[in-house]
Each structure stands twice: as C-alpha cells, then as structure tokens.
C-alpha cells in the first residue's frame, strides 16, 4: 500500500530518488543546496537505500563523480541549486555528449548577483543549451513522481540524456505537502534496473571515449538533438504509463480550463496553483480564461503549445527569469513560445510578464492584472510587450542606538547565533586590522550575518563584497593588485572564509594565491562543518563527529581525521602561517598584526587558521564556546603555532595535556563515540604531538624546526 505523509519537496525528492534505487549519490550540499542529500544520507544510514553517498568538496566534483559512476554502469543521482549548478556547468555540459542518464534534482534558486537564495529559474535557464532534459514540477508529489519517471525517460534508448527535475526553491522544496509515497515493489516493476550498452568503462567490455575527428562533432551533436526531440514522445509515454500504475498522469504540458479560452495564462512551477485560482475567478467574472503549465522546458513542446494557442486571442506568459539581451527582450519561456508560434496562420497576441524573481510572491491579483493588461493591449492594438512586476517598497527602518560604538569596526546586531565563535573571530580580526582594510567573504556564516537583510545596510565599517564560494582568494588577489596600482598598497586585503570555503571548495584558489605570493591576509574561521547551511560535513570535520551528512551509525559516520590545513599552507612556503583559537584572543591579535606587517612588506600570503567552536553545530550550550575552544587547545586537539619564513614555533607548550575525552564529552556531536574510538582520537593527538616535539621533521618542510 502506498503511504501518505506530510513531507517537504526535499524529502519527496529524496523518496523519489530512494525508490529509483541509485547506487551512487555524489553531492556537495552547500552552495546552496537543500536537505535532499541529508535525507538520502539518513536513508543509507538506516539501511533503507543501498547506495554510496560521496560528500564531495564542490559541485564541480559532484557532477564529476556522477559522470564517473555513470560511466561505471550504475544508476546515479545528485541534487543542487543556483550557484552550485553554475559551478558544475563544465561537467553538466560534459554529461550530454557521453549520453549519461544522470538524474539531478534542482531546487531552483537565484543565480547571483544580486545575492538571493530564493526561488527563480535563473540557475537552470543558464543550462538550457546543455543537452539535459529539464522537467519542472509543480508540487512535492510531482517532484517524487517525476524523479522516478526521469530515470525511465533518461535511460530510454531513444533518449539516453541526463535529466534535471526542477522544483521551486523554498516554495516547494522547503514547504510541506501531503505526498503519496509509492511502494518499492511497484516502482521496481515500473522502473527496471539500469543496464547501459552505449558506453561503459569496464575491462570486461573495453570501450574508450575518443576525441573524434573534428568534422564529426557536428554529427554527434545532430544525434543528440534527435535524442532530445525523441524525448517528447518518451516523456508522454512514460507519463501515461505512470498514470495507469500510480493514478497520476503526466505530459509535456498541463492544461486547465482551456476549452473556448480567449486568453491563456502560461506558467511554470508552483505559481500554477495560484494561477488556477485566478483563472476560476476570471471565468466567474466573465472572462474566458485558461491556463497552460509548461512541464517540459527541455525538450520544448512546440506542437502541444501551438495546438493550445491556435484559437486564443491573447497569451500572458509569466517568466520567473529574464534572458538579458535576448531578441525582443523578456524571459526564456516567452522567447521560445514566440518562435514556436511563428508558423501559425493566426497568432495570438503575446505579453510577457517578468515576475517572482528571487522568490517574490506572485498573487492571484497579479495574475488577474496580467490578464487585464494583456487584453487591454489587444484592444488598443498595441504590439507585444514585456512587463515587469517589480515595484519596490523601501521600508522605513530605524537603527538600534550605536553611539557607544563609534570606534567599532564590526557593530553589534550581527545576526550570528548567540555564542558564535566566528563572530568573536571576525570582531577581533577586523578591530585589530583597523579601517584601512578591504575584505571579501562568501555566503558562509560571516557572509550571511554581517549585513542587514531588510535594506542595503552593512554591519561592518569596512568596504566588502560577498563573492562566490570557491573564489575568496581569487577575488582578494585581484583586489590587492588593483589597489596597489591605485597607490593603495597600505590597505589590508582580507579574504575571510569558513572551513568549508577554505579546505574544500576554496582550496584551489587559495593554494594558487599562496604559490603566486599574493600579499593578502587569508583568515579561515574553522567551525568544522558547513554551519550556515545546516551542519553538513566538511573536510575539516573531525573523526567521529555527527553532522547532517555524517549521521550516527556505522554506515555514514565520519571515518577520517580532519584535513590539516595549516600544515598544508605551510608546505606552500608562504611567509606566514599561524593557527589561533578564540580562547586565546591576545595571541590571535598578535598574529593578525604580524600577518598585516608581512603583507604590508609585500612578502606574500599570510594565512591564519582560527579554531572557532559553534554551539549550534557542535551541540553545546552557548555559554561554553570559549571553554570548548580552550579544552581543544589544552587537550592538544588544536595546536597553537606559527610558521614564519619557514621557522616553526609552538606558541603554547602543553607539557601535560588534558585527555581528549574531556574535550569530546562536552559536545553533543561526539555523543555515542565508543571507548575505542576515543582511544583512536587520543592516539592521533599523541602522535601529532610527538612528531612536533621530536627531531623528526616532516619530509616536505625541511626548514621547519620543532
């Protein structure tokens, strides 16, 4: 019996994936993504899904791993959104030519800038020439149903193309609906196991993808284009078969009250529910309105749309996106609809409405306005037009009193959690550096809390720009060079990022900036997971720590030790590397001053790695932040040292160390560690210390002295 449950679009997507039995899931759950992969990690942990989840360090690698896994001949799944999809782009494109039927859930969210994490289609529209199918679901049920269908469509031998299943970010992904969850057995009968023949990497059946002779490429693309076209029939067939088995039928478009309609609203995604109500109201008011929802954006269903439009007077197309500079202006749906209606003998009047960008609500009234506006231009005989629903209300806000903080760089009122280690770090770092500082950060804890959400108001008295996740060091490099040319070499250029933005996705840019000798100050506040997005594992998460992607349990727990980032930076032979802790503020300040001096002398990159506990993610009371940081140092879990011009100096010699158990037991994230695991951690710490204090020098840093 299928089960009904009140679940979010994210969980519905995870169930859809689970029921489709992917064997490899590779995802970077961060920049930004959703809880889809967290749910999948839990399914695997509970033994409800036999799959490997690879928590990669970036979306680029997520799609890379998916491509690798698909080439090995197994079914794969991933999920992302917005910047993450954009960062993946190179590999997204790569998948189509290998004809890998990868299914990817997308919670559509705005592509920056301006920054927003809310819903629109700018992310997937930027991938609309990538050779992926793009199916847009209206609600959570359709998300689940479409993911199951997507595998069947993508793996069909007439198609063999990767497929995106899109849902509205937040509006569907993070809200709960009643969803019917089918039985595994029934899904298994509908969706057979994946058995590729066209391309697989396996010594038992040797094939190699060759760079083809250049003149052949056009022909390969021609075949892909035919596959995309074939997908129209396959989507309809699969949607109809699904309907027969599961009671919910799907097609390329979804029509509502289109009989005898003189005006059509055309929508995509979740706005359709509101539009249906608007159509009902318009009909009651005497206007013969109808509605067409575009479900398949790729392939674009020309025939169905031509058929729907052939007898109507006017069409109001709503785009939750805009294609800057496109011929005729407007959004993607509008533009393509126009081209597909070109051959109609009697064409309807078209008006395009750009609405709902970055999650702005589209109301029943908005739809009724669109209908009347469109009819008005028909009556007046005006040409097609693009209208923006973009009225802005600037709120009158009053700042909290700040008279006491005239000399303060980071002002109070930052929306970081109570007891935040990051804020304590940032506050002292910037106060020490002073006003001749420019900084860049990323959408981590610092990026999202140190500015006001209500209006354009910063909470830091410094110039800054929030940039993309992988780019802290790259942007800082450019800033430094530009300021130097403008005669402002004295300005401190700071890159500020968390551990995820440093040791995972930001590593490439940071390593390169270090190697080039860029005179920037790079500060990593290490809270040992992706905290801002909901406590997902990073490369800095310690052995045995709970996170939402490393839940407790043998199957998914964190089995490796954290990346030793400061040592890695020291191996770049930069002039200054230091570790610091929020429990030792004077030491931190001293190191910040030293870093500033070194970059002022243009000697190269100065790197500071600050241990910054997080009460929210580490599961301890907010009052314990400093104490936990101190215990980390006293137990030797965190070592305070500097490497200056290749010379290493321990800042705090711990003759007698507190047992690591004392540090672990005050944090909920380490609950349930066995004695043996605690012993393993203790041994790792002891070994670290003995290698530091012995004469044995690490092989690649010959100049380091104990």
């Amino acid at each position, binding site marked *: 019996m299928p089960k009904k449950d009140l679940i979010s679009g994210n969980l519905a997507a995870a169930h859809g994936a689970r029921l489709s039995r992917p064997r490899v899931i590779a995802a970077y759950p961060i920049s930004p993504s959703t809880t889809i992969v967290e749910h999948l990690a839990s399914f695997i942990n509970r033994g409800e899904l036999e799959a490997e989840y690879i928590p990669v360090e970036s979306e680029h690698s997520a799609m890379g791993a998916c491509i690798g896994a698909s080439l090995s001949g197994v079914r794969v799944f991933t999920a992302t959104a917005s910047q993450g999809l954009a960062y993946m782009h190179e590999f997204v494109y790569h998948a189509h030519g290998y004809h890998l039927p990868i299914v990817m859930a997308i919670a559509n969210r705005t592509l920056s*800038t*301006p*920054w927003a994490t809310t819903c629109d289609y700018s992310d997937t529209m930027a991938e609309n020439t990538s050779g992926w199918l793009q199916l847009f679901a209206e609600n959570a049920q359709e998300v689940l149903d479409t993911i199951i269908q997507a595998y069947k469509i993508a793996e069909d031998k007439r198609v063999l193309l990767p497929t995106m299943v899109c849902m509205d970010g937040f509006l569907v992904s993070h809200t709960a609906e009643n969803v019917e969850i089918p039985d595994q057995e029934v899904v298994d009968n509908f969706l057979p196991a994946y058995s590729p023949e066209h391309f697989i990497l396996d010594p038992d059946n040797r094939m190699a993808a060759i760079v083809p002779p250049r003149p052949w490429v056009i022909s390969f693309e021609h075949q892909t284009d035919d596959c995309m076209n074939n997908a129209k029939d396959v989507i309809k067939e699969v949607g109809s078969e699904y309907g027969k088995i599961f009671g919910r039928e799907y097609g390329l478009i979804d029509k509502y009250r289109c009989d005898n309609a003189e005006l059509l609203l055309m929508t995509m995604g979740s706005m359709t529910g509101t539009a249906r109500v608007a159509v009902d109201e318009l009909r009651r008011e005497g206007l013969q309105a109808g509605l067409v929802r575009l479900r398949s954006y790729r392939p674009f269903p020309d025939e169905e749309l031509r058929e729907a439009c052939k007898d109507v007077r006017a069409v109001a197309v709503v785009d939750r996106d805009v294609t800057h500079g496109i011929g005729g202006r407007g959004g993607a749906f509008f533009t393509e609809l126009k081209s597909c209606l070109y051959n109609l003998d009697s064409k309807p009047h078209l008006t395009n409405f750009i609405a709902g960008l970055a999650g702005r609500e589209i109301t029943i009234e908005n739809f009724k306005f669109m209908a009347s506006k469109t009819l008005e231009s028909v009556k007046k005989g005006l040409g097609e037009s693009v209208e923006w629903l973009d*009225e*802005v209300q*600037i709120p009158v*806000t009053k*700042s*909290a*009193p*700040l008279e*006491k*903080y005239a000399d*303060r760089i*980071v*002002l*109070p*009122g*930052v*929306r*970081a959690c*109570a*007891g*935040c*280690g990051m*804020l*304590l770090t940032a*506050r002292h770092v910037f106060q020490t550096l002073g006003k001749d500082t420019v900084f860049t950060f990323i959408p981590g804890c610092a990026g999202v809390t140190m*500015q*006001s959400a*209500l*209006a*354009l*108001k*910063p*909470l830091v*008295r410094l110039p800054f720009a929030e940039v993309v996740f992988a780019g802290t060091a790259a942007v800082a490099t450019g800033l430094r060079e530009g300021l130097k040319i403008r005669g402002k070499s004295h300005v401190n250029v700071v890159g500020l990022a968390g551990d995820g933005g440093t040791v995972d996705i930001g590593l490439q840019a940071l390593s390169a900036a270090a190697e080039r000798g860029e005179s920037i100050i790079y500060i990593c506040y290490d809270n040992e997971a992706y905290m801002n997005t909901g406590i997902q594992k990073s490369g800095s998460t310690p052995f045995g720590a709970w996170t939402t992607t490393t839940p407790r349990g043998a199957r998914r727990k964190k089995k490796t030790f954290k990346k030793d980032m400061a040592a890695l930076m020291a191996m770049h032979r930069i002039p200054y590397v230091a570790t610091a802790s*929020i429990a030792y*503020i004077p030491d931190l300040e001293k190191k910040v001053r030293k870093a500033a001096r070194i970059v002022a002398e243009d000697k190269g990159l100065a790197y500071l790695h600050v241990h910054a506990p997080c*009460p929210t993610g580490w599961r301890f*009371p*907010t*009052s*314990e*932040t*400093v*104490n936990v940081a101190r215990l980390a140092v006293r137990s030797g879990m965190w070592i305070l040292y500097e490497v200056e011009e290749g010379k290493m100096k321990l800042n705090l010699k711990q003759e007698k160390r507190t047992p690591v158990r004392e540090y672990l037991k005050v944090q909920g994230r380490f609950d349930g560690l066995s004695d043996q695991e605690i012993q393993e951690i203790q041994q790792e710490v002891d070994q670290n210390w003995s290698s530091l204090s012995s004469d044995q020098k690490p092989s690649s840093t010959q100049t380091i002295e104990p």
Partner: protein
Amino acid sequence: MKKLPLVPIGTEIESAETGSWRTFKPVVKKETCNKCGLCVMFCPDGVILKTKDGIEIDYVFCKGCGICARECPSKALEMILEEE
C-alpha cells in the same frame, strides 16, 4: 517609485536590536567584579563595555549567550531568567 542604486551597495550603517533574542540576562555584581575585562574580550558581539566604574552590558544587543558569566574568574556575572 524611488529608484534603487545600480548595484545593491550599502553605505549607511544600520543595526538591529538582537537583545530581544535573550532568554537569560547577564547581570553584574559590581562589588564582586575585579574589572579584569575578560568578559569584554570574550563577548562575541562586543556588547560589554568597559567604563570607569567597571563594566556595562548593552542589553539592546546582548543575546544572552552566557559566555561572560562562564568565563568570569570572580563569578561576578549571574545569568537571570528574563521576565515577560
């Protein structure tokens, strides 16, 4: 309609009263405080200010995390449940 700037830049500082987040309120016992300033240093939000009489907590912003009370070597800060 007021026109927005070309880029969403902000120049004017504005802050919000995070004091409303508080469940427990740190209260200073003046007679016990030795004015060491550790609470000033360790307050993540920087809302404990040094005055000539000792310290002053800015309740407009204090989120009530309790680090100050936890770290105070002379136990001069007490966390008290906020009343309605």
